[in-house]
Structure formats: structure tokens, C-alpha cells
């Protein structure tokens, strides 16, 4: 793979606040993708199921920071596009999506992250994170048919659909005991909850035929729900 990248950065600072704006454009050559229906298990000729293509990615990143005061943190937002083009090797081959540009697996149109901290006093400080991202591009079936009694899904173009939006809110409270002052051992307790409202973010959605009823169904796999945690950090 080879690529080149152009970036423009502008930086403003005004007292406690700073604003950073960045745009980028990136081109990558020799980006490989699997052909439609590629079977990788025990395949001794992988070169027959991949195609050579190219990739382009561009976007705008904005970050607003508050650096001072009891309450500080930042908001960052990225608007971006990441696309691939994989034509066939000969005019007869259709390539992937008929040689048109299509979303790569990493394409995230919107990406919002908010990170805040509030230092109440020497003993207690609090933090909160919020992340909101467009779902990953995926290929959902756009129909089904029956062949030899097998129910077969049929698909449209690759990466035309998206998983549901990904978001979660995390909070934490840090307790720094006053006894720290007079000793070398400096410890702190962190009480945190990841994914406070127990959002089931989809890692993937698969489509299958239910073996008991014979009906088709969509099955979402999600990894973390709400995760409370207590940790103790120390320095010496």
C-alpha cells in the first residue's frame, strides 16, 4: 500500500479557550478487498479472491477546548468520508460495486466526542465522556429466494447500509484521600460507570434462518452493556 496526505490546520487561542480546525485529504493506492463471495477457509490461492483497488479519505475536524478553571474539557467533532474503488481487472469483470466508489468499512460520517472534568475540591473530582458516531457501513440483504429448498439471501451493492448509531455516556468520580499529603504513597479511588444508560451498541447484525421456525431473522451482537468499575491507582 502507498499513499499521500494533505492537511491544513488552523489554531486559535483566547484565554481559557482554544479552537483547532483541521481538514485533510488522503489517497491510498493498492488497497485490497475481497471479491463478492470470497471463501477464505483452506484457500490455497488467496490471490484469486482479492482485487486491487484504491482508497480516498477526507474530512474536517473541529476541536473546542477549555483548558482552565474548575470545569474543563473539550468537544471534538469530525465530519469525514472514507471510500474505496475496486474495478475489475478486465472490461468483462464487474469488480466490486461495478467499479464505482463505495464506503470503506472505516467510514464514519459523524464522530462527536465530549470529554469534561469538574474538580469540586481537593478530595473529589468528577468526569464524564460522551461519544456519538455514525454506524459502520455494512451490507444487508435486499431480498431472499428459495433454491432446492434452501432460503438464500440476496444482496445489493456492498456497504450500502449502516449499523445503528453508536453512542455511550460514561461517568466517573475520583476520590483523593487527604492523608496523601503527608506521605510518599499517593493513592486515589476511581468509581466509574461505562455506558451509563446501558446502550446495546451493535458490533454486528447478522441475518439467519431460525432453525426452529424456518423464518428469517436479524440478530444483533453487542459486546458491552453498562459496566460499573472501582479502581485504585497509586504513585510512590
Amino acid at each position: 500500500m502507498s499513499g499521500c496526505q494533505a492537511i491544513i490546520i488552523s489554531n486559535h487561542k483566547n484565554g481559557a479557550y482554544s479552537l483547532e480546525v483541521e481538514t485533510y485529504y488522503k489517497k491510498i493506492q493498492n488497497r485490497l478487498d475481497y471479491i463478492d463471495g470470497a471463501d477464505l477457509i483452506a484457500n490455497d490461492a488467496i490471490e484469486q479472491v482479492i482485487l486491487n483497488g484504491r482508497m480516498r479519505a477526507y474530512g474536517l475536524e473541529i476541536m473546542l477546548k477549555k483548558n482552565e478553571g474548575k470545569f474543563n474539557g473539550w468537544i471534538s467533532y469530525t465530519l469525514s468520508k472514507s471510500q474505496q474503488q475496486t474495478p475489475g481487472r478486465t472490461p468483462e469483470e464487474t469488480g466490486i460495486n461495478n467499479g464505482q466508489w463505495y464506503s470503506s468499512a472505516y467510514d464514519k460520517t459523524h464522530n462527536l466526542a465530549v470529554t469534561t472534568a469538574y474538580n469540586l475540591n481537593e478530595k473529589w473530582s468528577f468526569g464524564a465522556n460522551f461519544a456519538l458516531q455514525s454506524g459502520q457501513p455494512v451490507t444487508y440483504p435486499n431480498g431472499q429466494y428459495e433454491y432446492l429448498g434452501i432460503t438464500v439471501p440476496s444482496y445489493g451493492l456492498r456497504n450500502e447500509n449502516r449499523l445503528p448509531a453508536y453512542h455511550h455516556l460514561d461517568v466517573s468520580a475520583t476520590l483523593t484521600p487527604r492523608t496523601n499529603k503527608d506521605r510518599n504513597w499517593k493513592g486515589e479511588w476511581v468509581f466509574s460507570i461505562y455506558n451509563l444508560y446501558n446502550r446495546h451498541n451493535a458490533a454486528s447484525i447478522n441475518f439467519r434462518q431460525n432453525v426452529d421456525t424456518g423464518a428469517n431473522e436479524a440478530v444483533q451482537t453487542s459486546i458491552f452493556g453498562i459496566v460499573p468499575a472501582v479502581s485504585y491507582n497509586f504513585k510512590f
Partner: protein
Amino acid sequence: MKKATLIIVFFMSLFFTSCEEVVDVNLDTAPSKLVIEAAINWEKGTTGAQQVIKLTTTTGYFESKIPIVTGATVYIRNSSNQLFTFNEVPKTGRYVCTNFKPKLEEQYTLTVISKGNTYTASETLKSVAPITRIEQNNEGGFTGTDIEIRAYYNDPGDADNYYLYKYLYSNKVTSTYYADEDKFYQGNEFFSKSNDDDLEVGNTIEITHFGISKQYYNYMTILVSIAGSNVGGPFQSPPATVKGNIINTTDKTNYPLGYFSLCETVTKKYKIE
């Protein structure tokens, strides 16, 4: 201590809740395509005169009924231009021929005319080796406790052969298919085997071996992969529509799905002991 145990149980349960759940997804439905199931099967020892071709269309992924296609013209010609007409059984989407003449290694051409489009395909009828014996192994499967059935045959050494195995279990709704090639057992004895962890004494299995062409082997391998067990795994095929050997000669871009295959078959029934 009791409290600590409760807390541990609570945290553990969080990790295992709702890893997988059935969800509602709004799917788009593409304009329907014609699906041609022209699977001509000639069971060893029969005349093979009665054959059925099914015409259906694609439908929305969550629909429970597959639409049928009526009013089509369906016929097959052999290499000496002999015509075999398939007549429609009203309101079933099935087209039946009662005077088909199967012949090994003979080239046949299928024509389907439906809604102003003409679809054609050519394929050769392939032979299959007979099933010589069936063995039952009570220590099969991953755990060594499942019942596994093997159907043996002798692969002919003078040609590259391709096989399709069909297992129909009395304890399952759908039958399973597996496509195989003789690359690693050319001219040797080989077998197909069952893939059902829930087999019990008294269940019956219907095993069918089909002799298939290399192209049909490629088609069925991909079809079986995208239709079932491989979905969502680490080696998942990129999802795509698999195209068969039937061409729409009126409008090439509006390609049909399905396949025109001609196979000699052997079928054996077995009851688990």
C-alpha cells in the same frame, strides 16, 4: 461474604446479558428477480422421464411466502435438437415434463420465456459413483459423543469429479447440502458425512449424492456459504448475490438467479440404530 457473592454474581451477569438479541431492521427490497430452479436429477436405475422445473421470484427478506411465476414457456433441447416441453401445473409455479431422456455427458440447453424476456443456459449431465456402504459412528462430532453417519463411494480415477451431498434428517425442517471435489482423493474410496449433533436412535436420514459439473460445484459452494452456517463467523464470505449459469438474452443486466443443472443421483435411506 454473602454480600460479596451477590455483587460478584451481579457483575458477572452484566457481562453475559444480551450478547445476542433478535432485532427489527428496516430492510430495502430490491425489484424482484426471476429465480429458475432447473435441477434435472436422474436417479440411478430409473428412467428419469419425469422432471420438474420451478419458477419463483425474489421477495423481501422477512416475507414468509415465496412468490411463484405462472404463464411461462419452458423447454429443454438436447444436442440432437430433440425438444422436451415442460407444461405448467396451474397455480404452483411448477413446470413438469414427462418424456425427458437423460443421457450421461449429453449437452442440454434450457430456454425459459417469461414476461417478454428469454433466458437460456447450457449444461452437461454428469454421472455419479454409487454409494457402496453406510457406516454409523457413535463417537463422532466435536465432543466424541455424537452420532455420525458416513456414506462411502469409490471415486473414478480417470476424471476430475465433483459431488453434491444432500442430507435430509427426520429431526430437522431443512435439508443440508455440501459440495465436494475429488482433488484430494482422486481414484480412492471417499465418503460424505452427516452434520447433525442431535441425531438419535430411530431417526432416519435420506442421503443423496449428485454428480455435478465444476461450475455447479463453484456455484453451490458459494450458495451454501452465503445461505447458512458461515454467516457472522470470522471467515465470513463478503455477502453478495451469487449468479448462476442462466443468461437473460433479452436484457443482460436483468439477470436471473438459480441454476440449470443436470445430475445423475444416488439416494439411500438409513435408520439410526
